[in-house]
C-alpha cells in the first residue's frame, strides 16, 4: 500500500504540500521521507561541503543530517519552510563536526605562537594565471584554513551565501537574526577572508 503511495507521490511530489507530506510521515508512512531525501540531498551536501571541504566527510554529515531530521520530525512546528529547518540542522551538524575535529583551536594556537604571516596564495602557487591553474587538494586546504579561521557566525553566513547562493533575507531566517546583522557578518567575513587568503592575519573580531 505504501509502495503505491510512494510511486504516486514521486510523480506528483511538487504538487503535494510539504507539510501534508510531513503529516503523512508522522502518521506512519515513513517511506515518504525518501522524497525529502532525494529533493534536498544535494542542498544539504553542498552546505556541509562548505564547512568540511571533503567529499567523504560531507557524505557522512549529509546522512547524519537526514537521520536527525527524521527523528526530530515530531518537533517540527511548520512555522518555517522545511528547507529552512533542514539548513539549520545541516549548519549545526557541520559546526559540531568541525569543533570535534579540533581544527580551529589548533590553527589559532599555532598562529598565536608564531605570530607571523600564514602561507597565502603566493606561497602555494603562481597567481599570475589563475584561470589556468589546475585545482588540487592543497587549494581546497588553503581555502579551508581561511574559512576555518573565521568566527562561526561569519563562517555560516559566508558558506550559505557562497555555497548555496542564498539571499541575505534567507540567511537571516536560517540564522534567526536580522538582515542587517547578516549584511554586517558578510561584510566582516569577506574582509577577513581577503586578508587570510592573501596571507595577512586578520585582527580578531566577532
Amino acid at each position: 500500500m505504501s509502495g503505491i503511495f510512494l510511486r504516486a507521490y514521486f510523480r506528483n511530489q511538487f504538487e503535494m504540500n510539504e507539510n501534508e507530506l510531513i503529516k503523512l510521515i508522522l502518521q506512519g508512512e515513513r517511506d515518504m521521507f525518501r522524497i525529502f531525501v532525494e529533493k534536498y540531498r544535494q542542498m544539504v551536501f553542498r552546505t556541509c561541503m562548505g564547512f568540511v571541504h571533503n567529499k567523504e566527510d560531507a557524505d557522512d554529515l549529509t546522512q547524519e543530517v537526514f537521520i536527525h531530521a527524521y527523528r526530530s520530525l515530531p518537533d517540527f512546528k511548520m512555522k518555517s519552510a522545511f528547507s529552512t529547518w533542514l539548513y539549520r540542522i545541516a549548519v549545526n551538524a557541520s559546526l559540531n563536526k568541525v569543533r570535534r575535529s579540533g581544527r580551529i583551536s589548533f590553527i589559532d594556537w599555532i598562529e598565536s605562537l608564531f605570530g607571523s604571516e600564514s602561507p597565502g596564495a603566493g606561497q602555494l602557487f603562481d597567481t599570475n594565471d589563475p584561470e589556468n591553474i589546475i585545482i588540487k587538494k592543497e587549494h581546497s586546504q588553503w581555502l579551508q584554513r581561511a574559512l576555518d579561521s573565521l568566527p562561526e557566525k561569519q563562517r555560516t553566513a559566508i558558506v550559505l551565501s557562497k555555497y548555496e547562493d542564498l539571499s541575505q533575507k534567507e540567511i537571516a531566517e536560517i540564522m534567526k537574526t536580522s538582515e542587517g546583522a547578516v549584511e554586517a557578518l558578510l561584510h566582516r567575513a569577506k574582509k577577513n577572508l581577503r586578508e587570510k587568503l592573501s596571507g595577512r592575519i586578520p585582527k580578531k573580531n566577532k
Partner: protein
Amino acid sequence: MISFVSNHKSQLKMNCQLCQEILEAYQEGKLPAGMMTQLESHLETCDSCKKLSEIQLLANRVIKLEKETDSDPFLATRVMAHIERFEDERLKTSSLGVRISRPALITMSLAAAVLFGIMLGNLSRPAGNAGMVPVEFALINDASLESVDFLSLE
C-alpha cells in the same frame, strides 16, 4: 554598497579600499560600466589589488568546484535503511514493555482482589470476643440435660 557607490561615483575616487570592497561585484559582472572601467584602470597600476583580484578568482574557482561535487547517489537508500532499523528497534522496545507490563498488571490485580476479600471477611466477623465461648455456656453440663425423648413424651 554598489548602489551607494554608483550614485556617488562623481565624488568617489578609486582607491585600494574601495577597489577591494567592490572586487567581488566586479568579478560577478555586477558593476556599472563606468565603475568597471575605473576599477580596471586601478588594477593595471596597483600590484597589491591585482594580486588580490587573482587570489579571489582562484578562491571562487575552488568554491565552484566544491559546489559542483556530487553527493553519494545511494544516500537515500542508506538513510531509509537506517530509519527502518531505528523503527524496528523502537517497535521491539515498545512490545517488550507490553510483554512485561501485562502479566505484571494481571498479577497485581489478582493480589489486590485477594487482599480486598480478606479485608471484607475481617469486617463481617464480630469484634472483641469473637471465637471465645461465654462463661454461662461453659458451666452447662451436657449430661444433666433431659434427653430429647423425655421432651417428646406427651
